[in-house]
């Protein structure tokens, strides 16, 4: 098992773990965190597998994609957090009404 595959496997596990958290938890903050865990998993898969080059220096394209992905994830998280605070401010609760979303 090369490190590249180890990263990718851990990434897969994080993705699944995040998915579990997203489904099971009702609290919006936990859901948002769960999505971030999932995102980290995806980035690990994307970035980790770039290390399979014969030369040793990793493939730069996935790395650039990860940076792009991270910025998008940061932005999405910011929006989600502000939205969560607004939901809490208007409804008094930090869960979604009528069941638990996903």
């Amino acid at each position, binding site marked *: 098992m090369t490190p590249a595959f180890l990263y990718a496997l851990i990434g897969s596990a994080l993705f699944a773990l995040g*998915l579990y958290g997203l489904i099971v938890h009702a609290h919006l903050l936990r859901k948002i965190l769960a*999505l971030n865990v999932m995102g980290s998993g995806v980035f690990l*898969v994307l970035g980790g597998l770039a290390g399979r080059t014969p030369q040793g220096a990793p493939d730069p394209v996935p790395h650039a*994609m990860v940076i792009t992905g991270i910025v*998008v994830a940061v932005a*999405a998280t910011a*929006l989600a957090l502000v939205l969560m605070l607004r*939901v809490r401010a208007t409804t008094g609760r930090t869960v979604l*009404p009528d069941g638990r979303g*996903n």
Partner: protein
Amino acid sequence: MEPATAASNWGVAIILLPLAGALLAFLFRRAATRIGIGAAVATSLAAAALARTVIRDGTMHHAVGGWGAPLGIDLRADGLSVLMLIMTATVGLAISLYAPAYFRGESRKPEQFWPLWLFLWTGLNALFLSADIFNLYVTLELLGLAAVALTALSGRADALTGAMRYLLATLLGSLAYLLGVALLYHGFGSVDIAVLAERVEATPVVWTALGLMCAGLLLKTALFPLHFWLPPAHSSAPVPVSALLSALVVKASFYILLRLWLEIFAPLVGDGVGELLGLLGAGAVLWGSIQALRQTRLKMLIAYSTVAQLGYFFLAFPLAVAAGVTAWSAAAYLALSHALAKAAMFLAAGNLIRFGGHDRIADLDRVVQRLPLTVGAFALAGVSSMGLPPSGGFIGKWLLLEAAIAQGRWDLVGVMFLGGLLVAAYIFKVLGYAFTQANVLHESRAVPASMEWAALLLAIGAILLGFMASPVLALLGVGDPFNAVETMG
């Protein structure tokens, strides 16, 4: 590298024009409405120009940065892309005419609406032009986040929770899609659709990527049973936003799915997946229609109607096996008609709400006499949704029925038959009340003419599509997006 052609310039322009508009509208807040309308007109003109050049010169290719795939990102506009861009421009222009009157008098709303909507438009245009699955991810996020922000614009509790649910769903969908992109890249060393199409083989990686990307995109497209987020979001958003979401945003993820399916996955996966998508589509048609029929609020009814109509597009997947071009053309035609009709319906609903202060269907109270243009818009849009002639919906349904009958798929024929009756039932439920005197008295507010006409013009567009099948189908043939040549061979 390759010289920039006229088509390339227009292709780039329809991405950069709304972007520039968004930046300016954000910067010069007091002029946001004027800048927004200007950008909308300019973008629509650019879309028309692009369409003209693509019809004349064939598919547009543009290698961003001059590198070309697989190192760089390619933009591509074939008939299908152009059709989607025209659809976006038409609906976008109408909504841009509608929004100023809708937001007039509300402090801060115009300056918030216009940049977000123009960002959304940028995302849509970029998405329909992209030939690169990672770039598509970025456009998807651009689109999704703009849509969420717009959904929450009113700040009311139902809008906020609707937006929150929508955000969680759309992010989950994007992540699943992105993981699929990651697997495809590492499996085949490219994120360019055309390059991937040459390289992919039916390996576990492709299957996993297919599963992830399909699941993510279906969630974003709100295909039954992944539609749970759509009705609350689409019904609680401000009216112009509801129209955008239902008419355009769900089409974007469907478009990506269609592209991936046509170019990457279809040759590999056999009939099973297509059958499954068709089954879900059938479920959507029936379930969405029944739910729509049960609603007492107009906006909820229209939102569930979107769930149902989205199902029709997916009926094309099982039919494409033997009648590819007809089935896909039908899906594209239905998507186009639905965009115009559904936007018209939401805008009409917005007028009714503005007029009576509510959207309770049973209390519409002879509104046909007071807002004839608006009810006319709703009715015409309804005609197209039902698939009755003459309308774009009729052409789409005709083609889809033709494909289904030719293959003896009586199960799908039955679904379309039942679906059509159910649509008629809920549309005429609304119209029936619009003609009938209600027992309640309520105050009424004047509805600006621009709001009535925007709805009506869109609806008339949906009707006129019934007479434009030849040019539209000819456009769809540009660049052979549906692999007609291969199917015949």
